[in-house]
């Protein structure tokens, strides 16, 4: 669906990506994660066409049409909109640009946003939901969502995620999410991509990742395994290892624990801060 080939990008002197390639097939729900500042949001913006690569190309499936942006729903953490427009005007503008004949404003109704309110008067949560409503109204084939889950309350979060599940059920929707906290989206995700210094450090599907990353609680460091990071306690330490092989189960000294996605990503990221 989206093919990134040999892309280089920098903000002035600060390089973010160099000869970066990534391919996202249609219908996949993909998580992009990594430490703050590693380039996740930049990657998403490149995919959305809002930033242009300095070198390399980003190709889209032809079924997205001549201008793929028509079918890409992009919600960034900047929540960029024309702030001095009222809600009604913003909706009208959006409809005319995308050529929509109708607009389902049920999400907006949920949050009790007034039509005469200006966009800049909304709270972050309201603005996020409004943005999502705009994006969903164009029936996107690709959804690019950047870290906005955190700024909305639990109820709205659920409403948003339900919308995504609905869309996933209805059609082939490709989703790329950038997040650092995954407790409610964990089961939507199929593929996990971890960025490190502008490169892909980990690219696995979630089931494989779960079987390969384990926590070992022991006194001593397991020497046959690669330790990503560790937490030391007075009597023992927790070692986060990757890749773990089930065949080694009998030979490891200590207790082996499975991890959820948040813990897995923390293990990778923790190693970077050490």
């Amino acid at each position, binding site marked *: 669906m989206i093919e990134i080939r040999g892309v280089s990008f920098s903000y002035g002197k600060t390089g973010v990506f160099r000869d970066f390639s990534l391919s996202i097939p249609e219908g996949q729900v993909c998580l992009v994660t990594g430490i703050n500042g590693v380039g996740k949001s930049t990657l998403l913006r490149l995919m959305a066409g809002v930033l242009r690569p300095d070198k390399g190309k980003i190709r889209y499936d032809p079924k997205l049409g001549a201008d793929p942006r028509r079918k890409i729903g992009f919600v960034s953490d900047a929540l960029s909109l024309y702030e001095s427009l009222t809600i009604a005007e913003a909706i009208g503008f959006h409809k005319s640009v995308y050529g929509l004949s109708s607009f389902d404003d049920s999400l907006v109704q949920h949050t009790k946003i007034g039509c005469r309110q200006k966009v800049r008067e909304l709270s972050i949560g309201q603005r996020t939901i409004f943005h999502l409503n705009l994006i969903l109204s164009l029936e996107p084939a690709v959804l690019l969502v950047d870290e906005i889950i955190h700024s909305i309350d639990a109820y709205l979060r659920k409403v948003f995620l339900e919308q995504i599940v609905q869309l996933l*059920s209805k059609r082939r929707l490709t989703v790329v999410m950038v997040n650092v906290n995954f407790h*409610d989206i964990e089961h939507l995700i199929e593929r996990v991509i971890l960025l490190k210094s502008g490169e892909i450090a980990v690219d696995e599907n979630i089931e494989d990742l779960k079987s390969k990353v384990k926590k070992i609680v022991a006194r001593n460091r397991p020497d046959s395994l690669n330790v990503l990071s560790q937490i030391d306690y007075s009597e023992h330490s927790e070692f986060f290892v990757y890749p773990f092989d089930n065949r080694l189960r009998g030979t490891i000294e200590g207790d082996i*624990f499975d991890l959820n996605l948040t813990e897995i990503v923390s293990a990778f990221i923790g190693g970077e801060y050490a």
Partner: protein
Amino acid sequence: MGKLEEPRQIRIDAKSAVPAYEQIKRAIKLAILSGRWENGKQLMTLREMALKLMVNPNTIIKVYGQLENEGFIYSRPGAGYYVKLDPAKFSKGSPELFREVTEDYISKALQLGYSAEQILREVAALTNIGIPSARRKDHGNDRD
């Protein structure tokens, strides 16, 4: 026949390395084999199930697909999925599922740090049976 009351019982353990689809599958199998879901009852649609559990619809597709292959449910094209209770399976008591469930319990208890000893004791206590003394290592401790 209306739709079933749904999986409040199905909780996916995110910390388990058992894949989500496998956990859901087992929960449904359990519901069917235990008789809680009667023969012929209609399952939730793929979409409803995905929404209820907040999982990727592809996961449910996989679950339903495998359950259908294994003979636990059948589908009527355009009309949903239904429980297919094979009396043969039922009467055999589904040893594979029993094994799975038992393994699951044991591995969880081991993770918690209990020894095989303590697990056996616990099972015995909960099912009201005694444990043969020959199996016990520490003779000095009290019997249940």
